[in-house]
């Protein structure tokens, strides 16, 4: 097998599973260590640079980092990365003097961002810091996009959104609320150097079934209803509520309904429980609030009594898989089920809509009604116009919107400076030995064996009584530190220097997870099977080094390395060293190398 090139920019980055999985590549272990040492403001600023909304994301992020977390492969559960982010936000002291300010001297370029969701606000932040004059136009009453209008207050209080949108507004960003852009054509005539479209995926899919029109008064589109709840336009719902759909919107709908008078609130989904789109923790939260989830029921009709909704009819289905593994739901043939109800919330999907973009501007849309974009630069076919967030590739989540905002800001900056867009600024990378003494490292290499800590919750009766009461209390400092200690410091890399190795096997013998091997060379598949613990997780790299005296190779399976440094402590010659790898993705303004 070819020896590993640890200089390749992605090699060590991939070892830091959480950072690699985070769309914005937040240096997770770096901030977790700051939390463990009680430096909350530092932890917050590390996050703020990467993901712009630490307090928000620390509560509601989709957390793709957690399923990726290495701890989850050696323990019952991954590190509570997301909730530690909230700890940074909750306990940080005054950070006003840490937040950068926009240059007073502007660079003369004017940028318009449409929509004030996370994507636009990220573009605005990154560009404002470079001296761009950024204006944001949003049709809502307050900044934040769907973070404000959709996510219920009991998960994400307004104060947190206010604080973090405020950091951006203070960078001389002009945020115009209640300002709908009705025509891209006319916006383009206003002489903006570039336009960023971050308008999200604002349309909720409807259930076109018999009875839909007749019973319309008590059938609501989930995201419209949630927006009305968020802004206080809706304060009640009937006692018996059926929520159709199995995604996160459905979970927010049912939990909101439970707080607005719904007593018998149930979620009905056509798929099975495990295949539901909602994150496991969202389902758990709904179940915790006494909301049953009914699976394998396909809605077929709204029942009504002269226009007054009385219930929903469901067909019973089961999943069948074809040879390609695709799922089909087929009727079981059992009798239909009728559930009575007073209101229905339809949460079966979300779509993009761009009624305000004229189709003759040279801005192309594909067959699904999404803009045609360069996947890396996010530039549309109209060079001055860029997209990001849900508006770009359909509904995703906040952290993806942020990550795309960063990329779009880089593109816009390069566009305004007439630099080629496809040449992207690389991340900055540092690699530094952590050795302080024979058994001393500048990180805490003792592995905590504690189980994942649960986030304390407010009493159920208190949270069900008031829709604005936040359910989670967040970790206290003691729990936060215990949870932070669970992080394995995957960024502290094991770095091997073959010419120092005397092949004494000390590292092989001490490694608690038996991931180091000295063996005869072979092809990767063969090698993977031959290791002390077969390396069957092919998503995880093998670290291979040659140049040993016996002509064997050193093979380390990165998969479950605990980054405990025991190999380096045991090595008599210093052939192993623990080196911290710190990667920061480039933000707008960073230069791309000339080639």
């Amino acid at each position, binding site marked *: 097998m070819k020896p590993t090139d640890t200089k390749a920019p992605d090699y060590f980055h991939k070892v830091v599973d959480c950072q690699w999985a985070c769309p914005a590549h937040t240096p997770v272990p770096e901030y977790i260590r700051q939390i463990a040492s009680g430096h909350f403001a530092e932890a917050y600023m590390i996050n703020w640079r990467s993901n712009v909304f630490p307090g928000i994301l620390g509560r509601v992020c989709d957390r793709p980092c957690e399923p990726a977390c290495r701890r989850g*492969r050696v323990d019952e559960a991954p590190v509570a990365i997301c909730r530690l982010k909230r700890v940074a936000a909750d306990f940080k002291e005054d950070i006003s003097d840490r937040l950068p300010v926009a240059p007073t001297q502007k660079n003369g370029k004017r940028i318009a961002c449409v929509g004030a969701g996370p994507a636009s606000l990220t573009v605005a932040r990154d560009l404002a810091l470079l001296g761009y004059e950024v204006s944001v136009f949003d049709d809502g009453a307050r900044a934040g996009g769907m973070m404000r209008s959709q996510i219920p207050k009991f998960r994400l209080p307004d104060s947190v959104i206010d604080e973090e949108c405020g950091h951006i507004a203070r960078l001389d960003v002009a945020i115009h609320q209640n300002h709908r852009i009705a025509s891209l054509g006319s916006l383009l005539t206003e002489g903006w150097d570039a336009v960023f479209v971050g308008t999200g995926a604002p349309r909720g899919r409807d259930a076109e079934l018999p009875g839909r029109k007749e019973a319309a008064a008590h059938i609501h589109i989930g995201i419209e209803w949630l927006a009305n709840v968020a802004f206080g336009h809706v304060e009640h719902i009937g006692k018996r509520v059926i929520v159709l759909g199995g995604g996160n919107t459905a979970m927010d709908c049912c939990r909101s309904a439970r707080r607005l008078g719904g007593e018998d609130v149930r979620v009905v989904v056509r798929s099975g429980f495990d295949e539901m789109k909602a994150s496991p923790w969202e389902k758990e939260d709904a179940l915790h609030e006494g909301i049953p989830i009914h699976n394998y029921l396909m809605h077929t009709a709204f029942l009504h009594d002269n226009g007054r909704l009385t219930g929903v009819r469901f067909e019973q289905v089961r999943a069948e898989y074809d040879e390609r593994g695709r799922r089909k739901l087929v009727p079981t043939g059992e009798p239909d089920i009728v559930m009575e109800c007073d209101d229905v919330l339809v949460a079966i999907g979300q779509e993009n809509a761009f009624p305000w973009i004229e189709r003759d501007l040279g801005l192309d849309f594909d067959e699904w009604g999404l803009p045609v974009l360069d996947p890396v630069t996010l530039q549309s076919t109209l060079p001055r116009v860029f997209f990001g967030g849900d508006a770009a590739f359909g509904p995703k989540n906040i952290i993806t919107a942020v990550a795309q905002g960063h990329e779009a800001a880089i593109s816009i900056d390069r566009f305004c400076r007439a630099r080629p867009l496809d040449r992207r600024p690389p991340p900055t990378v540092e690699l530094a030995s952590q050795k302080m003494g024979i058994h001393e490292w500048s990180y805490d290499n003792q592995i905590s064996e504690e189980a994942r800590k649960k986030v304390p919750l407010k009493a159920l009766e208190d949270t069900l009584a008031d829709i604005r009461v936040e359910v989670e209390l967040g970790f206290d400092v003691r729990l936060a530190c215990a949870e932070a200690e669970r992080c394995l410091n995957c960024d502290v890399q094991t770095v091997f220097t073959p010419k120092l190795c*005397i092949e*004494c096997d000390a590292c092989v*013998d*001490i490694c*608690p997870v038996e991931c180091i091997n000295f063996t005869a060379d072979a092809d990767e598949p063969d090698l993977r099977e031959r290791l002390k613990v*077969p390396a069957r997780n092919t998503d995880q790299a093998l670290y291979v080094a040659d140049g040993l*005296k016996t002509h064997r190779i050193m093979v380390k399976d990165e998969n479950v390395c605990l980054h405990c440094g025991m190999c380096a402590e*045991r090595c*008599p010659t210093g052939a192993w060293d623990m080196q911290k790898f710190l990667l920061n993705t480039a933000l707008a303004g960073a230069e791309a190398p000339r080639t």
Partner: protein
Amino acid sequence: MTYLAKPRLLAATAPRNALGYTRRDYEGAISTLCAGCGHDSISAAIVQACFDLDIEPHRVAKLSGIGCSSKTPDYFLGNSHGFNSVHGRMPSVLTGAALANRNLIYLGVSGDGDSASIGIGQFAHAMRRGVNMTYIVENNGVYGLTKGQFSATADKGSKSKRGVVNSDNPIDLAALALQLGASYVARSFSGDKEQLVPLIKGALRHNGPAFIDIISPCVTFNNHAGSTKSYDYVREHNEAVNRVEVILPRDRIETSYPPGSLRRIVQHDGSILHLRKLGEDYDPTDHIGAINHLQERHALGEIVTGLLYVDNSAEDMHRHLNTVEKPLNQLGDAYLCPGSKALDALNASLR
């Protein structure tokens, strides 16, 4: 040396043996030996061997003398019986234990100082008596624990770390064991687990005195140029006579070798030693041939390793002494101490 205990976190795919144990379950306390010590590798090889053989840890008694090597039983088989005896006295304590309870697997761990210097007499008699045990000497050519004085296995002409040349003749413990009647004799190198682990497995399954001389470099006091027990020197002069594979009765035999290159030796307990010849013909059942081979090669400066001798029909001390089958602790007081009448009868019979 590390101060931290090994974390208990494990990969879900960590191999488990027939008892459901992982290798980690056969470990002991964290080693306090110098980083890179060959002895630690031997501990790991013992762990691997016991794991592979599905040995129940509580069926093992590990005994040792004094020295860095003799400290190692603390670092493996944390759930086994252990006895850390006086310097050079492991063999007699082990013999006593074996006499009292023949149902345990006896593993004696010693050093070259412990066995070839102060304990040479004890070593000799354990081999001679045919104690059913695995006798491992972790041979580094020095007294590691007392800071590197030459031991009795140090080669004549080899240099100490401070440049002093050894003028005494070395004792070859493997050759001695052969002469004294050990029925399983091997030599290996701590830095070659592929060779070492099967040799330990074969020894653990052998009925009779099994002796393994394991060259085990002392990184701190005997791993320099001029030493004949350094990693580099041993690798350069290592002449393996064969490679062993231990096949248990429950295993399916899957290995295929060119005809004629493989020799099968069925041990007393049904385990099979698959011996793959390396280089020229070497017959590990030829007692005199083995002794001669060792001497010839030693004269050439080679370190002969592998399974040097095995007698698959060996008998052990219990057979020689016609001892009772049951462990003494299961016989009961009345049987063990039959009273004054029985004593009188015995005395009378001797008058």
